[in-house]
Each structure stands twice: as structure tokens, then as C-alpha cells.
């Protein structure tokens, strides 16, 4: 039987605060799952219930077919990575990594061999005699990884492991974690509030808000088809328009956007979301022939920000600020400058529509 992890109707209440509200989640053996959400959404509490540091108020944590609610953290075969690294300052790198093996009374020879393997795995063999205080943040977190992996846990739980690090090291270590997960085939549950990190690293992303799961799916699904305006807003960047439905169009101020499927929606008040890179920015009059006339608008470039491969423009559309991302090459080609008048085209199929009364229902 494969060692799957299952959360059944799991709930955690602190005093009057419902931190986690009837969450159901299944994680397959060898899967890399990211719990993503703003702070206070309950993602860390879920992780702590899996580790055993918190006991669920209700519901079951099931692992390998057995309910493990009442097992102590030591009895669960899970490794944990903390945001603060949590290395033992009184032990050197070698002893830190050996700790879990010592606790399991591993024979000395096997232990030394295993620690050596782990040191190689994270590339810190030359640092084995150093103390945590002598290492950089990135190195410390790699030691923490080696330490957690040394006893060969079947699940690794990571609680915002990279939040305390610089942007550059964050990206590098992200790749290390991903590689380790693929090489070792270990189940990883990764908690983060950084949507970019979640999309980059996970097989499956679970987006949470206020103790509930809002959506789960592959990074691509989450990004392309957010099921609610919350997810559309939290994952990636989106422009939002709140308008009224009129047959197959949605009226927002003076514009009437054609939105496929709008006429089948039940609600009249509609939230429209569109990703910045989906909006086409053109010099006036360069409109493509096949374009839908009503989805065209005029604007003026207010702010230009270089982000490297893309250029982010803030365009004022009758006082409404729209964010558009243009590929750097196009940007140069079109010779856009601050203050320029431009045409904006919103491709109908790029719109995601949500009923604005409930941000939950699925888009059409």
C-alpha cells in the first residue's frame, strides 16, 4: 500500500478563532504539495497538525491508512524544516545531521556513512566541523535539510523554509529542494505565502484563505483558471473590473466588454479579471482586423517599470489604472514612452468572470 497522507474534515479552533475549518486534503506518496495563502490562513496550523505539534479539534489525520491524531511527533516518521532553520547552536554541522540518527540509536558506522552522504547531498562536506553561527543563512537551511532527511523520513514538511533568505539564494535553494524531492521520491508538503515560489516548485498547489481551501490544482491550472477572484488576485497579478451583465457583455463604466459565456451566468453583478500579460498594448490605429471592437479602449502610459524580460506598464484608462505586461522586445519595437497615448485590447477569451456576490463560484 502506498503511504498516502489524508486529512479528513480537519478543524482547529484556538479559543474563539477557527484557524482551520473542515479541510479535506489527500496527498499521494511522492507528491510535492504547496499550501499557499496569506498569513493567518491556517496553512501553518495544518502543517503543525500533520507534524503532531497541534492536535486537531475535529477531524482525522490519516497516514498509511491509520489515524495518527494521537501519535506524538516523535512517533511520526516525518521530517520538518523550519523558517528559522532551528539548528542546534551547540553542535557542529556533523552533529546536527547525526542527531536524528543518534536518537534512533543507529550503529556508529552506519551513522557516519549516512551523515557523509547527507553532507554530499547538500554540498557542505567541507563545512562539517563548523558551527551554525559560522554559516550563512542559505548554508544553515541546507544543513537543516540534511538533518531532516538523514533519518530517511517518508514525508518532509517545510514551513516557509526560504522566507528568511535573500531573493537570489531563495531561488537557488528552491531548485535544490525540488531536485532533492525528485531524486529521493519523498513526499513534500511545503507551506509558503509566496505565490511565485509555490507555482515554481510544486506538483500541486493548494490555495487557502481564512482556514479553508479555496482551490487546488497544478500550478498552471491555478494560474490560468483561478476559480475565484481571491485566487486570481492572490496568485499572480490581475486587473479587476466590477460591472453589470448585459446579455453577452459586461458593462463597466463607459465600456462594454464582450465576455464569452457571460449570458449563461446567473448573477447580474460580475467581477471581471484579466492578467496583465493578456492585455495587448498598441500604438493608436494598429488594431488587428479580427479584433472585437467593444473590447478596445484608449489610454495613456503613466508608469514604466522594467522587470527584465517583461516591461510592466501602468496605463490610465479614463482614470482607471490598468496594469499591462509587455514583452521587452515588443516594448522596444513599439517605442513606447511615458505619456504616450495607446490603444488597449482585451481579448474576450482572456477574461475570467466571477459573480461578484460570491467570489467562490467557478468561472464560465
Amino acid at each position, binding site marked *: 500500500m502506498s503511504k498516502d497522507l489524508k486529512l479528513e474534515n480537519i478543524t482547529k479552533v484556538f479559543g474563539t478563532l477557527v484557524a482551520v475549518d473542515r479541510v479535506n486534503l489527500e496527498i499521494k506518496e511522492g507528491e510535492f504539495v504547496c499550501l499557499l495563502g496569506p498569513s493567518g490562513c491556517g496553512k501553518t496550523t495544518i502543517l503543525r497538525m500533520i507534524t503532531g505539534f497541534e492536535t486537531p479539534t475535529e477531524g482525522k489525520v490519516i497516514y498509511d491508512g491509520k489515524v495518527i491524531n494521537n501519535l*506524538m*511527533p*516523535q512517533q511520526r516518521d516525518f521530517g520538518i524544516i*523550519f523558517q528559522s532553520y532551528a539548528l542546534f547552536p551547540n553542535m557542529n554541522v556533523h552533529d546536527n545531521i547525526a542527531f536524528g540518527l543518534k536518537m534512533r540509536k543507529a550503529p556508529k558506522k*552506519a551513522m557516519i556513512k549516512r551523515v557523509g552522504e547527507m553532507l554530499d547531498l547538500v554540498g557542505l562536506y567541507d563545512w562539517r566541523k563548523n558551527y551554525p553561527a559560522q554559516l550563512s543563512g542559505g548554508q544553515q537551511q541546507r544543513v537543516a535539510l540534511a538533518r*531532516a532527511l538523514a533519518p530517511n523520513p517518508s514525508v518532509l514538511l517545510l514551513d516557509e523554509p526560504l522566507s528568511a533568505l535573500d531573493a537570489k539564494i531563495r531561488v537557488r535553494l528552491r531548485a535544490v529542494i525540488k531536485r532533492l524531492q525528485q531524486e529521493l521520491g519523498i513526499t513534500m508538503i511545503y507551506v509558503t505565502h509566496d505565490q511565485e515560489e509555490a507555482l515554481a516548485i510544486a506538483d500541486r498547489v493548494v490555495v487557502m484563505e481564512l482556514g479553508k481551501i479555496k482551490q487546488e490544482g497544478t500550478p498552471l491550472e491555478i494560474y490560468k483558471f483561478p476559480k475565484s477572484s481571491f485566487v486570481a488576485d492572490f496568485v499572480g497579478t490581475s486587473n479587476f473590473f466590477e460591472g453589470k451583465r448585459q446579455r453577452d457583455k459586461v458593462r463597466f463604466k463607459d465600456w462594454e466588454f464582450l465576455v464569452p459565456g457571460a449570458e449563461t451566468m446567473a448573477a447580474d453583478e460580475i467581477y471581471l479579471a484579466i492578467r496583465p500579460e493578456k492585455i495587448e498594448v498598441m500604438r493608436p490605429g494598429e488594431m488587428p482586423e479580427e479584433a472585437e471592437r467593444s473590447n478596445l479602449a484608449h489610454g495613456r502610459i503613466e508608469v514604466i517599470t522594467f522587470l527584465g524580460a517583461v516591461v510592466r506598464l501602468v496605463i490610465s484608462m479614463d482614470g482607471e489604472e490598468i496594469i499591462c505586461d509587455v514583452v521587452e522586445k515588443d516594448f522596444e519595437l513599439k517605442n513606447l514612452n511615458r505619456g504616450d497615448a495607446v490603444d488597449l485590447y482585451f481579448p474576450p477569451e482572456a477574461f475570467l468572470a466571477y459573480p461578484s456576490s460570491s467570489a467562490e463560484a467557478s468561472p464560465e
Partner: protein
Amino acid sequence: MDKAAIDTYAQPLVKFKIDKFIIIVVTICITIALVFFMLFPIGTILKMSFIKEGGFTLENYFKYFQNPRISRSLYNSFYVSTITMAITTILAFFYAYALQRTTIRGKGFFYIIAFMPLIAPSIMQALALIFLFGRNGLITAHLLKIPWSIYGAPGIIASEILYCFPHAVVILYTTLSAVDTRLDEAAQSLGASSLKVFWKVTVPSAKYGLVSAAALTFNLTITDFGNPVVIGGDYNVLATEIYAQVTNLFRFDLGATISVILLVPSICAFLINYYITRRSFALISGAARPFLQPSRTFKKWGFTIYCALISLAIMLIFATVILGSFVKVWPYDWTLTLKHFDFPSLGGYASIWTSFKVSVAVGLLGAFFTLIAGYIVEKKRPLGVEFLYLLSVMPAAIPGLVMGLGYILAFNEPYYFFYGTPWIIVICVVVCNFTLGTLSSVANLKNIDPSVEEAAISLGADSVRVFIRVIFPLSMVAFVQNFIYFFMRAMTTISAVIFLVSATVHLAAIEIIQLDNDGWTASANAMTTCIIAIVVGMLVLLKLLAGGRGFAGFGGATSAPSA
């Protein structure tokens, strides 16, 4: 990767059944120990003072207040304590101010001198003052040739000021370091004169520290036994009256009654201090900066002279006691001699050895149990932890003399095997000083990232191994500090142990009183010198062993027993 080999021993090796209960069991054990060794003796004292022939009565209290000779001790205690409190607080405030807020030279020197009195028993001041200002005093009788002598209230007040000074300085030094000096600068930039800034900004912003220092000084003075018994003469205070009733008259009921009366102001002072300390923590802002503008010449000289005078007074006390133990006949024959070190009393050198052994035991047990108590209170928080916390901070409210009396009343039964052995002394001193040890352990444990502990647990360590392998090594500095604190208290305390020494168990600090009582004043000084030497020796030894770390918190470890 040798996965199979790892898997073979990857089974949990924790004794989980035991581990689930170990914290609860330890909590219950410490709670029971504190109840048994603190509440039970105090309860016995209350019982003895209120209950006679099986019924509740206030007879003892009527008796106390009807006898003007005894009831005078209440007034006397308040009189000397109030005056000591006022003078010490003011002196210590300006001293701490000089160290924190001026740019005088020699701050390190003045700082160390201020804390010197902590290494000696609270009897040294009285011994020295008698040598200087007594009937045969060097200054009064021989230099000034005046008939005045210091015995009685002036002597008690003078010696208590010198004894309490470091305790008050610790509090005010911390307070003044915490208050943002930019407040002063802002006021000055608004055109306030220096004197006005001092009265309108500096003093009010240190008001919690001032009240706290005052309450502590009052408490220390009213509960002190060593100084008044030597220098008080006929001037009886509550502490000496308890001793007189019990030891000379065998009136245990009256001794218990006076103990209860002494408990009242002592508990009040403790509560004020406890409340204030909590409040003042809020004032310690992260914005506080230790930047100082150079003091003007006049201010600088004024404070330098002030600090020098106080330091001189403290050093004079030490010099007198030490010199007094090496000269033939103070102040007539200044030939150096070692004959005062041939202690003519029962205990002699054996008492010093016993004191040392007892102090090491107190140091180790005190540091260990306060670390465990702190760990449970700060990190584990099992059900009922509030009660354990209350018990842990209570000892500071109970005068050592009262605790000691409680011990002989409660444990003087054949089945209490530890009664009459050095162990009862060890237990009593540990319990008497439990508060500060626990508080400093808690403060240290607050600095340990909770994730570190969770990491150890997730790697398979049970509670005991988490404690031994992670918490204890990370608490080493606090442990050494607490060891020093408990060791010093055990070497120097008189009041907590005076009732507990017996015909077979002698302690150095108590020998001082006995030697002085029997007229061997120079030998009393010599005994004091021995204690000072041992404490200094231990401090130096630990400083060498800990590479200076042991000293880092020297000031902290010595701060207020009722902090």
C-alpha cells in the same frame, strides 16, 4: 543511498508511554516540593501564632502589643527601614545616574565597587562600623576623641545602607539604561535647563525603578538579621526579637507571632515590587539609545567626587574588616598576626568547610531546579502551571528568618530524616532564593527559538533527551549565573540558616555571630574575611572556566531577590 540500511533502524526508540507523562510528573514533583518546603513551614508558623489549645485566638498578638518592650520592635523596624529606604534610594539613584547618564571616567571601577557588598555576609558592615565608630572605634575614640558611638539605630541604618546599596543600584542602573535618553535631549532642545530636565524628565521617567528600588531596600532592611544583631545593642527590631524570643526564651509561639507581623510589610514590599517590575518592562523601548553627550566639567567633577566618596566608603568597610582580622589588637597594636584565624569557637575551620560544601550543593541544586522550573513555566506550560509559577515567585516575599523558623517548627519530628543534617540547610537556602533563579532561567529560555526544540522532537528525541541535549547546553550561561547566585547566597546568608545550625552542623556565617557574641571580634572579622575569600575565589575560578561568560550576568544574577 543506502536506504535499506537506514530503514532497518528507523523505528522510534522513544519510551512514549513514559514520555507522555514525564513533564506532568516533574511538574507535580516540583509543586509538591515547594508546597512541602515552603507553604507547610509558613502554615506551621501561622498555626502556631493563631491557634492555642485547639482554638483560634489572637491572644499572642495581644501579648505582643501589650508588652511595650517587644512591641517597640515593630516601631523600631519601621523607623530604621524607612530611613534606610529613603537614603539608599537617593544615594543609589545618583550613583546609577552617574554611571548611565554622565561621561565620567572610571565607570567600570565604580560599577564593580558598587557590587562588592554582595560577596560578604550582611554582618560585615556592622563589624566594620563598630571598628571605626564603636565604643573603641578608630575614628570616634582615637582620632576625634569623642564619646559618641554608633550602636543602636544610627548603626543599623548606616550598615543597612551599605548592605542594600548594590541591590538598589542594580535596579536603577537597569531603569536608567532603559529610558530613552532622547527624551532628555528633546527637552533640552526645547530650551529646558539641565536641572529642569533632570526633575521634569529624568526623574519621572525613572519612577518605576525608584519605587521598585525603595520597596526592595525596605524589604531587605526590615528582614535583615546580621547587622542589627551585631550593632543594634539594646535597640531591638522585629528580626532580632524573633531570634531572642525563640533562642533565649524558648517562646516559639511569640516568635511565630512576630514572624507573622514581619511577613506583612515584607509581603507588601514584594507585591509592590512585583507589580512595578511588570509595569516597567513596558517602558523598556527598543528605541532607547545609549548615546551620551559629553557632560560639562562641573557636572563631571561633581559626579566623580560623589562616586569616589561612596566607593571609598564601601572599600573602607572591606579594608577595615580584612585589616581587622590581621592586626593584633585593633586599634592599639597594629602588628600583623594570623592568630585571629585560630578560631576559638566550636565550629572553627570545619564550619568553613561545611559552608563551602553546603554552598556548592545549594548552587548546583538551585541552578538545576530553577532551570527545570523555568523550563516548565516558560516552555511546557502543562495544566496547573500558574500554580507552580506562583509558588516559584513566592519565596522572595518570605524573610529568610521566618522561613528558617518555619523549618524548625515544621520539621522537628523524628521521621523527617533530613532534620539536623546539612540537607535541611541546603533545602532552605534553595527555597529562599528560588524566585530570582526561576526568573533568570525564564528570561534565558525566552531567548531559545521554540523551533529548535520542535526540531529535536521531530528528529525523535523524547522530553528528557531534548532537555539534556538541547535545552541544558543552551542554558549553560544562565546555569552558571544561577550557580554563582545560589553559591553566594548560601555562603553569606545568616537569617535563613541561623535557626537551622545545630550542635553538629556549623556554618561559617553563623560562626561570625557566635564569635562576636563571645567577644572574639577580631576572629569574627577573620571569619568574614574567609567567606569573602572563598566567594571571590569561586568567582575567579568560574570566570576562568567559563571564559568570562560567567561574569556576563554578574550584575543580573545579583539583582533584587524580589525582582
